[in-house]
């Protein structure tokens, strides 16, 4: 036959270096890869550089030095803020983990009544704004205007304030109940997919129910618990709104509130702000690295897929205690804050008690009616800007997420690994830290003081969330589906449009709505990067809280909460029940 087996041995070296190869695929993915790299890396580099620049006493010139870091660790105010941040993060992590694990266990593994009904409510705080939660709890439990304190006074005659959230405990309380769903999400999935025979075999050896739970169940979900706890720690360390509202005005500053004062305001010092951001960022990035590299790979693969329906533990009479516990959580995290805000928003002046004869919707007119000359600009601007940013940001971020996921999973080599790495980095840095980097990078460019800089900050910080949504689907979808489209004669772009993207649709929708929610409530990036005219919804809330009064603040908070709640309903419709569980 016409085949020459004895082909002459040819010497071709393995390919090295870049080959110029202009295809649709290479051009587009390279451009996006470069943009992502620049967007992620440049602000961090700028942050590092600026943190070593020291502003002189006159505030005009800078020189290189370590003075900023000395200030962070030795300066009286900032060092105290650093310690407060550590206390809050630790306290919140403990509280959120206790809440999250116990609630997850009750919902996934016991016969607690109505648990299917309670599950979505347990997750609501995940979607709401913790800043708004802090405002609500301020009105519920601050010494003077706290509704609970005043009710205690009028009903039980308790004359001293029963609760006081205007301190570190208050911050721990509010962040703890708001971040508990993060732990819950990690743990509940793990518990649900656990192979029941693991527990059954412990029971057959004679271990009791309690013993089995403690020695088998909990250790098996430990990696999930640790992952959740780390995420909570990092999120709290970067949380700005809650300490800003609850504790900072009463002398309990945190690093984030300090960064804020150094970014804007009268004694702005970006260099010192950059140094503080570096301190927060190094710690959080380290923890995220630990989570990714050490804890996540260790999660036991008890996940054997379908078919398993873990045994539910019969709690007997205790099940009503479990139910009450869960209801209490939902009350303090969801119902109580929202109801309180609603009542506050109906008063012209809030004095800590509901005055039924004076209820009015006037505040809503002030903050919502953007066509009305007497409306408050910061609030109405915020609404419009936030919807623009949420819509545009979620859309662009999802496009980036799709292309990045595509590159990670469908192309090989250095670029793919680099992007995989790049899309973890933003998760390691709190919004306020990344925003500080974006600020010092772009402050002298035309995009400063426009919506574009906010958009850039949002997308850079949050596209990894969308990317993870897409990646999990892309890993499950065979590459051969794409390849067979190429073989059928479709170009790379056509294949992307007609095969790849339609297959990813559920993930794209879910990711889009998730980002929409995140952007609609975003505060810590916005607060650093906004300027007059580019306020966002949460910045509007901040403005009202700072310069107007509690009722007006509450009105805008309620408006934001309603928008977020609508998104949650849509999210559950599109993404299905288990979309979020890790």
């Amino acid at each position, binding site marked *: *036959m*016409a*085949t*020459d*087996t004895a*082909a*002459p*041995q*040819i010497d*071709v070296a*393995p*390919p090295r270096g870049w080959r110029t*190869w202009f*295809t649709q695929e290479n051009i587009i993915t390279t451009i996006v890869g470069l943009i992502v790299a620049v967007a992620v890396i440049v602000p961090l580099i700028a942050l590092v550089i600026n943190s070593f620049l020291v502003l002189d006493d006159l505030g005009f010139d800078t020189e290189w030095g370590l003075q900023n870091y000395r200030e962070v660790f030795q300066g009286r105010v900032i060092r105290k803020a650093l310690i407060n941040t550590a206390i809050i993060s630790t306290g919140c992590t403990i509280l959120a983990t206790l809440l999250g694990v116990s609630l997850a266990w009750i919902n996934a593994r016991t016969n607690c009544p109505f648990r299917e009904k309670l599950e979505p409510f347990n997750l609501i705080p995940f979607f709401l704004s913790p800043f708004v939660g802090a405002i609500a709890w301020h009105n519920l439990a601050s010494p003077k205007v706290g509704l609970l304190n005043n009710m205690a006074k009028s009903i039980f005659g308790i004359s001293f304030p029963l609760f006081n959230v205007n301190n570190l405990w208050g911050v721990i309380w509010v962040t703890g109940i708001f971040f508990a769903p993060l732990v819950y999400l990690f743990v509940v999935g793990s518990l649900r997919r656990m192979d029941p025979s693991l527990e059954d075999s412990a029971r057959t050896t004679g271990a009791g129910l309690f013993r089995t739970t403690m020695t088998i169940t909990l250790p098996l979900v430990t990696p999930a618990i640790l992952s959740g706890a780390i995420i909570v720690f990092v999120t709290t360390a970067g949380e700005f709104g809650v300490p800003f509202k609850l504790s900072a005005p009463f002398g309990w500053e945190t690093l984030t509130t300090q960064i804020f004062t150094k970014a804007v305001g009268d004694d702005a010092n970006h260099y010192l702000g950059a140094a503080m951001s570096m301190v927060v960022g190094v710690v959080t990035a380290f923890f995220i690295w630990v989570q990714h590299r050490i804890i996540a790979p260790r999660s036991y693969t008890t996940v054997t897929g379908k078919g398993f329906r873990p045994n539910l533990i019969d709690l007997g009479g205790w099940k009503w205690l479990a139910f009450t516990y869960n209801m209490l959580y939902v009350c303090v995290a969801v119902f109580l804050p929202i109801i309180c805000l609603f009542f506050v928003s109906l008063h012209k002046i809030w004095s800590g008690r509901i005055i039924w004869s004076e209820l009015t919707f006037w505040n809503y007119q002030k903050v919502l009616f953007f066509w009305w000359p007497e409306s408050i600009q910061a609030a109405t601007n915020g609404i419009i800007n936030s919807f623009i940013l949420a819509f545009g940001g979620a859309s662009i971020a999802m496009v980036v997420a799709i292309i990045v996921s595509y590159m990670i999973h469908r192309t090989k080599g250095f670029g793919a690994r680099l992007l995989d790495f790049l899309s973890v980095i933003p998760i390691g840095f709190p919004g306020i830290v990344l925003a500080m980097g974006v600020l010092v990078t772009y402050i002298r460019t035309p995009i400063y003081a426009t919506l574009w800089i906010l958009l850039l900050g949002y997308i850079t910080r949050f596209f990894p969330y969308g990317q993870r949504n897409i990646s999990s689907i892309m890993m499950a979808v*065979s590459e*051969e*589906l794409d*390849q*067979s*489209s*190429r*073989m*059928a*004669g*479709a*170009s*790379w772009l*056509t294949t992307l449009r*007609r*095969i790849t993207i*339609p*297959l990813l*649709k559920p993930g794209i929708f879910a990711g889009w709505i998730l980002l929409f929610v995140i952007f609609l409530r975003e505060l810590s990036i916005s607060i650093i990067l906004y300027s007059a005219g580019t306020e966002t919804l949460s910045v509007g809330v901040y403005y009202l809280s700072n310069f107007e009064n509690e009722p007006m603040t509450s009105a805008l908070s309620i408006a934001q909460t309603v928008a977020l709640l609508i998104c949650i309903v849509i999210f559950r419709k599109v993404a299905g029940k288990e979309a979020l569980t890790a």
Partner: protein
Amino acid sequence: MSDNNYLQVNHLVKYFGDDRAVDGISFGIPEGKFLTLLGPSGCGKTTTLMCIAGLHKPDAGEIRIGSDPVTSIEKRINTAPEKRNIGMVFQSYAIWPHMDVTQNVAYPLEIRNMAQSEIDDRVAEALKIVGLTDMADKNATQLSGGQQQRAALARAMVFRPRLLLFDEPLSNLDLKLREQMRVELKRIQHEIGITSIYVTHDQAEALVMSDEIIVMSKGHIEQTGGPHNIYARPVNQFVSNFIGVANLTEGRIVGNGGGGTGTIEISQGGENVQLPCLLADGLSEGDEAYLSVRPENVDASREPMDGPRIEGEVIQSVFLGNCLDCRVKWGEFEWKVLAHSRERLRVGEKVYVRLDPDHTLAVKP
């Protein structure tokens, strides 16, 4: 000679990192024929196919279809996969789950901007050939494995490609369906007369379906030939071992009788035996070689036969009706024998083994 080939691959090299997945292979296939790339897992079959499809870019070599050079690294040509007009059936079938069967099959035609009426005709025709006419409106997820297979084939051939590529298309099916689909695939290929390249690691599949088989290992070609040729005249130890069952033992060529015949000497436990054999190309006196003989060409009996004597002990004997499947221990070596003997050989008996000289081969190591 290679000008007659419809597809011609020359000196193809593909690296993954520093590994040579494909190590400078060359082959060709005349129009309308069915060629199989056969080899163990990881030998580079898929990689070769992907290079032909244009889904991988080789690091050296050229590929020509008809008179169209689709890949030539030297001339910096590498046609995009969608421009090659090649149909491909994947191992996972890759039926798009968000489209129904008709949409799947019509897709290549839509890409080519055909008129709707022609698309309908062609899709109906393709579905008829693969026997899926009744399934036209079903969603991909509702199809069984065999049906998905047929749909994938319909989609790959509906646009009348120049070449059909198959990457282990039957390996996900159960044994019975696989045997049925082998015949079916071959029938369809013959019916539409399309030049095809088929990748598999299943030698039975290759023997049944192919006009021509290329046996590969570690990125290079071990042997090329028709199914009968590959089975009856393996050229080396690897092919002989990979295809079918063979008695293989080390030896040395001690005589060359001309006309491709010769003598091989094998030894066990101090005993040397010289056997007449057919020499593989390129073997000459004094060379190290392997003796290769299929069990059906070995006989065993209690009485000594003419010719070289190999005396051993029966260590296993299974009656199969038409013959006896025995193992005969000779020194350290165990002969696999399908004995035609009417006598029942029993375990422990001393017997004489005889090899059919017309089917005793000396192959390269």
